[in-house]
């Protein structure tokens, strides 16, 4: 088993939380893991990415080779496109459709979505609205993770356990909201895949 995942977003959007959930679940499932993060200057509202590699065998490089990623998981639509050079020919792109606009020359949203729809394998969902519906806009990142979960070779229950463990310190309310977010994201992806 091998999952090479590019996580994408803007500094502060919570991609490291997604990485932490998958990472915890992977370790609990006895998998090898390497995860390269971006710290420092870019975290100030710049584009950020994380290379997350899971495997049943030992992993050599901390970086995913270009053209080899199994999926891109992005909490922001334009950012999902920035890492297309990494996506393998059979790879999936799972992204939020709601832009995070903090630059003056952000492209037209419809054009961005058009680019995403060109990809043969993609799941695009409005994670902001879904997160809002389950109780907190901040859970949009976990909604996206839920939408990516059918493509990650880790049992869904292990991801749920990881959410319970990582949000447990912050209170039962947050655990509840994030579990709902995770499931809601998964449901959208499953429906999408049936289409």
């Amino acid at each position, binding site marked *: 088993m091998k999952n090479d995942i590019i996580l994408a977003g803007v500094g502060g959007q919570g991609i490291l939380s997604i990485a932490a959930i998958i990472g915890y679940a992977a370790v609990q499932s006895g998998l090898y893991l390497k995860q390269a993060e971006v710290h*420092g200057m870019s975290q*100030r509202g*710049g584009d950020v990415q994380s290379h997350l590699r899971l495997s049943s065998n030992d992993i050599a490089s901390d*970086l995913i*080779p270009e*053209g080899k990623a199994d999926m891109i998981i992005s909490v922001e639509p*334009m950012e999902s496109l920035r890492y*297309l050079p990494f996506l*393998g020919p059979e790879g999936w792109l799972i992204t939020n459709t709601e832009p995070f606009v903090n630059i003056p020359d952000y492209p037209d949203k419809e054009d961005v979505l058009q680019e995403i729809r060109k990809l043969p394998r993609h799941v695009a969902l409005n994670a902001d609205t879904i997160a809002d519906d389950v109780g907190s806009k901040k859970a949009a990142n976990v909604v996206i993770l839920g939408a990516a979960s059918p493509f990650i070779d880790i049992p869904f229950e292990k991801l749920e356990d990881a959410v319970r463990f990582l949000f447990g310190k912050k209170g039962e309310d947050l655990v509840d909201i994030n579990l709902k977010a995770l499931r809601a994201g998964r449901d959208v992806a499953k429906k999408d895949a049936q289409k």
Partner: protein
Amino acid sequence: MHKLLLLGDEAIAQAGIDAGMSGIFAYPGTPSTEITEYVRASKEAKSKGITANWAANEKTAAEQALGMSYAGKRAMTCMKHVGLNVAADVFLNAAITGANGGLIFVVADDPSMHSSQNEQDSRVYGKFAMVPILEPSNQQEAYDMVHEGFDISERLQVPVMLRITTRLAHSRAGVVRKNERPQNQFKLPEDLRQFILLPAIARKRYQLLLDNQPKFQKLSEESEFNQFIPGDDHSMGIIACGLAFNYLMENYPDRKVPYPVVKVSQYPLPKQHIERLYNTCDKILVLEEGYPVVEEMLQGFLNHGKEIKGRLDGTLPRTGELNPNHVGKALGFPQPEIADIPALVARRPPSLCKGCPHADSFIGLNEALEEYGRGRVFSDIGCYTLSALPPYQSINTCVDMGASITMAKGAADAGMHPAVAVIGDSTFTHSGITGLLDAVNDKSNITVIILDNATTGMTGGQPSSAFEKIDDICKGIGVDESHIRVIKPLRKQHEENTRILKEELAYEGVSVIIARRECIVTLNKRMRQKFKDKQKSTT
């Protein structure tokens, strides 16, 4: 055994805690910051009484570590690559004094300049100082090398350099811990003159360092971190240093490289391994993260030997960090067809946060400077450097820590008036004070704006050495009190602030404007904590 999931930085920190380190000394700098942060947050470290405080700069940090080593205890000092420039004086001379308790300099290089102004390679410094260098290829080695580094340091009484790069520092992987070791007892150096570098003693100590070189060499030859891995295809031999070894292996999913390989993770270079490789292979490919240090050594000045391939002959890019694709291409593998980034994807550079006090300071400064024109603002290293970008485009320089004040002074001495320096509070106490003293002594016409957000913001909000001390420092070194002005950078005070800025820009002499308002990120963090504490106390 149970594995911890750790960043390379964190693996080094945990290893220090486990290996009987008594103190860690550092100034924050990407990508090294998380080492000290981890120790500071560790309950284990606290219960063991390990000293873990942020220092004013890398030099003061490294000297504290050397002092702890003098007292017989194990010490670590951590910095980013350019931080070693600041600590170079103590680093090079500590190689001459030698160590007593184990002493490790952890230096985190930043090839590709993700968060830095250059991509200097610290192995050059290590060679310059003639000390052993350890360069891990993964998080586990980073952990193990701290234990080994302290051993080498104590056995051979020499400081050891542990060199990592951004990709290892900020990448997470499983790490297995070793048995814990107790800290050393307080123990003076056997020779009480060991650390007195008067010429007569320094010559002897230097000779000892030279005499020890063969021992360092022998350690490298025998080190388990250096390996000769045989291969059947002798048309090429490969030298893979540190992290580059992983990129090599990534290109062989079965981990079987057809060519003979020397894995290098400890320096001086393991000569026997490399000689064997050179003698049995037609040409050599060197894979190394950073400068072509090993490649140049192998090639020599005249390059009359076998073909050496690497960063110098274009086989690999001359600059930037390596990746599996670069290495794959160098090995002659066809590269996958990759998609282009769609043209509509816009750049998203980092920017000042919403509500950042610096934003208000720069809006005021831009307006106050309008009548003089652009090109007069010397700045420094911190979040405020982002004011170089739109919409502010306020500053004209960013060179090294503290250079804002001294460059402004030099320009003022050349006749520029007004000449403005913009520096953060933490950078001011790091390297700004002495420059301000120069300006006061020379009565130079400069206006220094100290952006006091009460933290070291760019690296994640570490406590600032300058906290609540700036006014007194400026007074103490002789800035005229009537020209030390404090403003609060808020939109609603824009007009008053701009007026004060204009007054001081017009003044001939040294003036200091302290723009004081807490970093919005640390403020929010503090408020959240306060809210949580309040909730706790009411439930």
